[in-house]
């Protein structure tokens, strides 16, 4: 079980790639990295999850906390490259309706 999180920020635009599995073991790594940026005013974050092959509810919790914090500071979070399995997770939890998400095969590429 492992995770790789690459975040680069310039001019308040945060680009991120997450690879691997996001579960109870790896979620703290992701949370810690995202927390560095979440209180920036007006942050525009775009996280690419196309190489995330597994995510459980703990991972979902990390994204929601990040989303709430960024939103509260006037910013925006977009998650893209969601696999069908991840998309289902966001749809079931109702988060797909309030967050900006984009699944594989739609828009962008």
């Amino acid at each position, binding site marked *: 079980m492992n995770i790789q999180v690459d975040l680069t920020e310039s001019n308040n635009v945060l680009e991120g790639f997450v690879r691997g599995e996001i*579960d*109870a073991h790896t979620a703290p790594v992701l*949370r810690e990295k995202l927390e560095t940026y979440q209180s920036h005013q007006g942050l525009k974050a775009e996280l690419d999850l196309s190489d995330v092959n*597994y995510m*459980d*509810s*703990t991972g*979902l*919790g*990390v994204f*929601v*906390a990040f989303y*709430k*914090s960024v939103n509260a500071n006037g910013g925006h979070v977009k998650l893209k490259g969601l696999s069908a*399995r991840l998309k289902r997770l966001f749809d*079931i*939890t*109702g*988060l797909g*309706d*309030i967050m900006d998400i984009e699944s594989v095969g739609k828009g962008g590429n």
Partner: protein
Amino acid sequence: MSQEIEFQYKEILKEYTKKQTEQNLYVGQNFSRQLILENIAPEEVISMHKAAIQELYGELPDVVWHSFDFLIEMMINYGLALQERQSLLKQQEELKVEMDLAANVQETLLKTKLPILEGLDIGLLSIPARKMNGDYIYFVSDHDGYAGVAVADVIGKGLPAALCMSMIKFGMDSLNSSHALPKDVLGVINRIVEKSVDDSMFVSMFYSNYDAKQARLTYGSAGHEPAILYRAKDKEFSELFAKGLLLGVSPVAVYEEHTVDLEKGDLVIMMTDGVTEGRNDEGFIEREVIYELIERKKKEPAQTIVQYVYDELERMQSAQFQDDFTLVIYKKV
């Protein structure tokens, strides 16, 4: 340090310096274990050694005595590290005791009584992956032919999750009605959870209300894994989907509710993602596998089906559930 210990050390050292046998060395090894038990620091052992050598072989070059003094200084931090380790061990023991207490409190909190309803057979199994359960199941019943059931999964594990469950319980107790509608129950608990927990803790919850007289199930979901309906007549499974956001994300979330009328042999399967998100070496255990397991045992009592699904999934995952497992089956009889 007692003179007794110093004396014993000197004797053991004397024997060894006379004759370097395995036996004499072994006596020394055992003695060192006793020193650790008595909390004697490494620098004290060296002081003791120096004193013993002085007594046994008084005349040695000064350089030997200086080197012992230097070694004593070198060992002081080792002594501190040892003390630290001992206090950590003690703390760990205390934490374990507190965790056990918390698990006991949770067990009391989690206690729920299966309702008795005309024409409905209920099976239930909830097993935590670790000491504390992140899943919560609670029945509300007034013995008037109605019963409510909440199946919830607290995201965020351990102690905070256990505390969060008490909010759900009190929210449901405050409504105090087996007639309460899912959209109202979910709305109330959402407001309680939203006010009370931090940003990274959420609850997904499925709530259903069963009217035994009409065999009617009214259900709603707050971001929870959809329940599954098995129609005996069609031999088909379908998801009971209801739109609704996780509890604790937004104070203004609203919850849908739907109804379904059950017929003889129909099953309603309510669960947490510990049931559906199973994994083994070959990948995910698909929902179809769970459907198949249920279908095989559909003629059996609800409790037998629930136990069978658990046993089989446990076998498939080599007895290693990563997540808490909660499964409830309603069977219309």
